């Protein structure tokens, strides 16, 4: 079992897993061919768990994320979120999505971008601005709240996208290679920020990445996927203590985990 150290309090009674996938398969049909993107995936993700989906490009990990979040309907199998179907969870606004590109609205300032979901999910209007500013402060962007996306750096934009996905308090954070377009220094800073946010906001996080070190550093468990069709090749618990600090990357234990994940990827 993965260590659940330093998770803090998990909100609500832990009644079974947060997300349960049963024999999920996705086949994309085009007029000329059908492509099996995901096959036979069964997986349980616990409440408050930080789970990484690791695999090479085209292994179906992003498709799997979209299936959990009800953006893509699976061809086979069942997805259960908190005991109900995924679309019900989406309708309850339980998912906060972050994509590889920040995908901010260029005509809205940082604070207005964070406010967008609050306008959609019926968040009390009088508390919207305060909530946005509180979140921007958490990621050190309060001074840039009136800046427009083209005035912000790539790392700043992705921070805005992350707090936008947290704004209304969804319980599950869905991250699709959120740091892969950033340079290494910025990526490491954002990983720290994310762990900091996770310590404050207690979410279940599903984190898609093709970066082995990133998966090991962040996650409680790393699900390694193999391509064509996307299947689970291995599930590796990460037995590293929390809170995790950058120095951890230089330890033998960390490198052993990285090695194990690389082995699983190669098999």
């Amino acid at each position: 079992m993965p260590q659940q150290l330093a998770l803090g309090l998990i909100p609500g009674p832990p009644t079974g897993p947060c997300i349960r996938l049963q024999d999920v398969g996705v086949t994309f049909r085009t007029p000329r061919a059908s492509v099996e993107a995901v096959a036979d995936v069964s997986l349980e993700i616990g409440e408050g768990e930080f789970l990484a989906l690791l695999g090479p490009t085209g292994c179906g990990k992003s498709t799997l994320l979209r299936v959990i979040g009800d953006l893509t309907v699976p061809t086979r199998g069942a997805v259960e979120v908190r005991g109900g179907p995924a679309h019900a969870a989406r309708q309850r606004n339980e998912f906060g999505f972050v994509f590889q590109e920040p995908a901010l609205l260029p005509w809205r300032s940082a604070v207005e971008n964070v406010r967008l979901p609050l306008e959609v999910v019926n968040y009390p209007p009088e508390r919207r601005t305060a909530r946005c500013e509180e979140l921007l402060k958490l990621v050190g962007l309060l001074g840039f709240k009136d800046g427009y996306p083209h005035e912000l750096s790539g790392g700043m934009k992705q921070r805005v996208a992350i707090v936008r996905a947290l704004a209304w308090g969804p319980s599950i954070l869905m991250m699709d290679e959120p740091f892969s377009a950033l340079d290494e220094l910025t990526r490491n800073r954002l990983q720290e920020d994310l762990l900091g946010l996770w310590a404050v906001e207690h979410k279940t996080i599903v984190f898609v990445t093709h970066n082995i070190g990133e998966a090991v550093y962040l996650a409680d468990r790393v699900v390694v996927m193999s391509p064509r069709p996307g299947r689970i090749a291995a599930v590796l618990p990460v037995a590293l203590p929390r809170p995790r600090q950058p120095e951890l990357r230089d330890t033998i234990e960390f490198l052993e985990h990285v090695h194990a994940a690389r082995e699983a990827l190669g098999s």
Partner: protein
Amino acid sequence: MSEPDVPAVQEASLWERALPPVIFLVVALFLWEGAVRWLAIPKWLLPAPSAIVERFFKLRNLWLHTGLTVMEAASGFTLSAVLGIALAAGIAHSRFLERGVFPYVVVSNAIPIIAIIPLLTIWFGFGYAPKIMIAAIISFFPIVTNTTRGFKSADPRMLDFMRSINATRWQVFTKVQFPSALPFIFAAFRIASSLSLVGAVVAEFYGSDRGLGYLVITSATQLQTDLLFVSIAVLAVLGVSCFTLFGRVERAYSAWQAEQGYQR
């Protein structure tokens, strides 16, 4: 090796931008005036600029004609903008509507507009109505095509995000798709507004007793070439005004797109 950091494009001042065309205009007018006087070109063939200016100031009802044509063009343009944006929104949301209607939008653009004028005159007479309709029809195509493209230009990740928070179609439209389309809509307005002017003038060629188009046709048939030049000059000013006006609105709105290599 090191070079000073100089911005690649330096914004020219109004003076720097306006001076060269003014110089060319003055030289051309001067040569024109001189040629007409020295070669004694008859007035009906090519009036001197001074004669055209003189005629301009003597004209009593020029503003009446101009006002009427502008009214027809503006009405047609407005009609076209409202219907065009509504249709584009429909096309962007419904594959059925796109497949069913878009071919006819293309066909409407392929028919020479002049061929429709007599038909509309049979149906609606010699009043303003057919002129407004021609102005609307001619500006319809660029508005529909550009706006449709604009609605479809919305970032697919952004649409995914809106879907993930269970946004309604209306919320997606007002918060993401419509603002995304605005730069395209303004670009369409820039083209369509000048086209609607062309439409109104051409429609006035056929069966009318006022308007700039009427002025062009009658001055030509009566060989009042100076009046013809006055009409053409007024039309040129109107056309350029439309273009500049919407060009400015467009640039002001899409300032944020500078980053994305959006060039004008």
